[in-house]
């Protein structure tokens, strides 16, 4: 597994890790805090070189998983291996992974360069050499000329970059990111999403990214694991998770799907199964407008029209079933709450799920 590069080589010129094999493997891993089952019998394989997201609401076990990989927590049962090496009982300072913390966790008593080179100093590297590597890492995250500043003097986005450089300079086999963008404002968050993805691609490094933001997870990841109550309910590419949710929870948590009970689905002309129906698959017409052939229909009353830029979110009540549709603004220009409307969709848009978590 050992890829030897000389210290003077820059990051970008030499990918840190070749991308084959399994980076992290969880086998029946459980971690309980008293009666709370934070992680409950988890199996997972994260491939080397992929951008892997752990997505879920707070308390779903995703951060605990990250901490298990980093070594801050030890599993109560099961086994974790990093690049096929079991890591049971191995303390965090002996693991070849590094973490970008949610609050960045920069050392307040050290300047930026000393923060970034902390790991190298611990390894006993000389000052000149480690500062050279530290500056390279800072250049990699586009933060130049801040070497002697202290963390409190930087903006949130800049601190974020320092935290990233501080982790990357140690050339970890896996980079763990714990909701690193949570504290940034929207614009900066979108910028960092693009940069993180580009960085990951150019380094070829395995990124494990924890987030509760489904948009973030879907836009950056090669694969996503959706967490709920200590379990992984679905793993797949963003397309798979979004378009073919396996459970009610995934359908609702990722993209806010309409979930139809089997009886309701049958009433609308679909299969008698638990169904996910994406809001953007539903078209909205005024009641009485001739319907297209081959589509399924439901008529109802418009309850609310929400402004969403170019789109409108229409919430309708169809004989006691609440449906949500996302449509182009032009299609519902004159629609007002209280009006009778007709909703339609293609039968193929009704995705059958297993009932479960």
């Amino acid at each position, binding site marked *: 597994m050992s890829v030897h590069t000389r210290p003077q080589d820059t990051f970008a010129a030499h990918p840190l890790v070749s991308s084959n094999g399994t980076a992290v493997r969880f086998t029946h891993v459980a971690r309980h805090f008293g009666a709370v089952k934070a992680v409950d019998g988890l199996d997972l394989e994260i491939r080397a070189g992929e951008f892997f997201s752990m997505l879920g609401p707070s308390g779903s076990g995703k951060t605990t998983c990250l901490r298990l990989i980093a070594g801050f927590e030890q599993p109560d049962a099961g086994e974790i291996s990093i690049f096929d090496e079991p890591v049971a009982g191995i303390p965090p300072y002996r693991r070849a992974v590094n973490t970008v913390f949610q609050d960045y*966790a920069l050392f307040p008593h050290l300047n930026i360069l000393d923060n970034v080179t902390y*790991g190298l100093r611990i390894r006993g590297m000389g000052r000149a050499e480690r500062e050279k590597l530290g500056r390279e890492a800072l250049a990699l995250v586009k933060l130049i000329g801040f070497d002697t500043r202290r963390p409190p003097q930087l903006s949130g986005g800049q601190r974020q970059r320092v935290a990233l450089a501080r982790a990357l300079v140690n050339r970890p086999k896996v980079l763990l990111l714990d909701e690193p963008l949570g504290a940034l404002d929207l614009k900066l968050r979108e910028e960092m999403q693009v940069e993180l993805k580009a960085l990951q691609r150019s380094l070829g490094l395995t990124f494990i990214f924890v987030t509760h933001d489904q948009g973030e997870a879907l836009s950056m990841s090669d694969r996503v694991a959706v967490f709920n109550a200590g379990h992984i309910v679905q793993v797949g590419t963003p397309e798979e998770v979004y378009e073919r949710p396996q459970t009610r929870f995934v359908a609702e948590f990722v993209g806010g799907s309409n979930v139809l009970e089997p009886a309701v689905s049958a009433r609308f002309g679909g299969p008698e199964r638990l169904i996910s129906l994406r809001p953007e698959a539903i078209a909205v017409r005024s009641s009485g407008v001739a319907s297209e052939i081959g589509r399924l229909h439901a008529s109802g009353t418009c309850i609310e029209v929400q402004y969403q830029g170019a789109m409108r979110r229409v919430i309708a009540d169809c004989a006691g079933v609440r449906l949500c549709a996302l449509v182009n603004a032009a299609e519902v220009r004159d629609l007002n709450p209280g009006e009778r409307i007709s909703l339609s969709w293609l039968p193929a848009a009704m995705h059958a799920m297993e009932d479960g978590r």
Partner: protein
Amino acid sequence: MRSKASLGLKIGTGLGLLFLHAPLAFVILYAFTTEERSYQFPPPGLTLKWFGVAWSRPDVWNALTLSFQVAAVATILALVLGTLAAGALARTRFFGREAISLLIILPIALPGIVTGIALRSAFSLMDIPFSFWTIVVGHATFCVVVVHNNAVARLRRMSPSIVEASYDLGADSIQTFRYVILPNLGTALLAGAMLAFALSFDEVIVTTFTAGQQSTLPIWMLNELVRPRQRPVTNVVAVIVIILTFLPILAAYYLTREEGPASDRP
């Protein structure tokens, strides 16, 4: 937005603060009086000669030296014990934690005379003769809480993830303590040490029970107050004590300014 303070409130506050601060000004004034036999006010004349007299008194020097030594040793002991206790209690939850917190505060929460006589009865039960160390034991016991409180306040303000970040970057526990925890805790420990020193340097109640025939500076002053020998020398010593306690307390304040009250004193 905010209404002005009423005149009555201002007067009440002003008089209260005057009441708190004026008496010490008189002590300083009396150090310069030419009157030897009484506390005559206003002083008939002013002189610097009592500073010279106090300077040449071996009993003052002996008491001052003993107080310094006791305070230094008690502070070092309190620093070690208080820091360890803070490390154990700042961010953990375990059965008995509350009881341990109470145990640390108890020596200053109970009246000093209780601590004093308790130590004395223990020494007498075990036939331990009074010595330098019996004084130190008493002082260290009530100084622990001061260091502990300062250290706990700082540890709770410190982001817990910086310790994890240090582990994550390859540092072991001892390196993490040396390179991350200690630099962040440093000023709080220094402030705690200053306050502990001031507390010990000034302590009289517990000391009367644990000193035997030895005389710390406060004991010396107490003897002078009960049976005055040379009043002007006592006045000068009082001024020295004011200065020696004022400086560490002021330093402690500036070291922990952002954290609010460092700790309440017994």
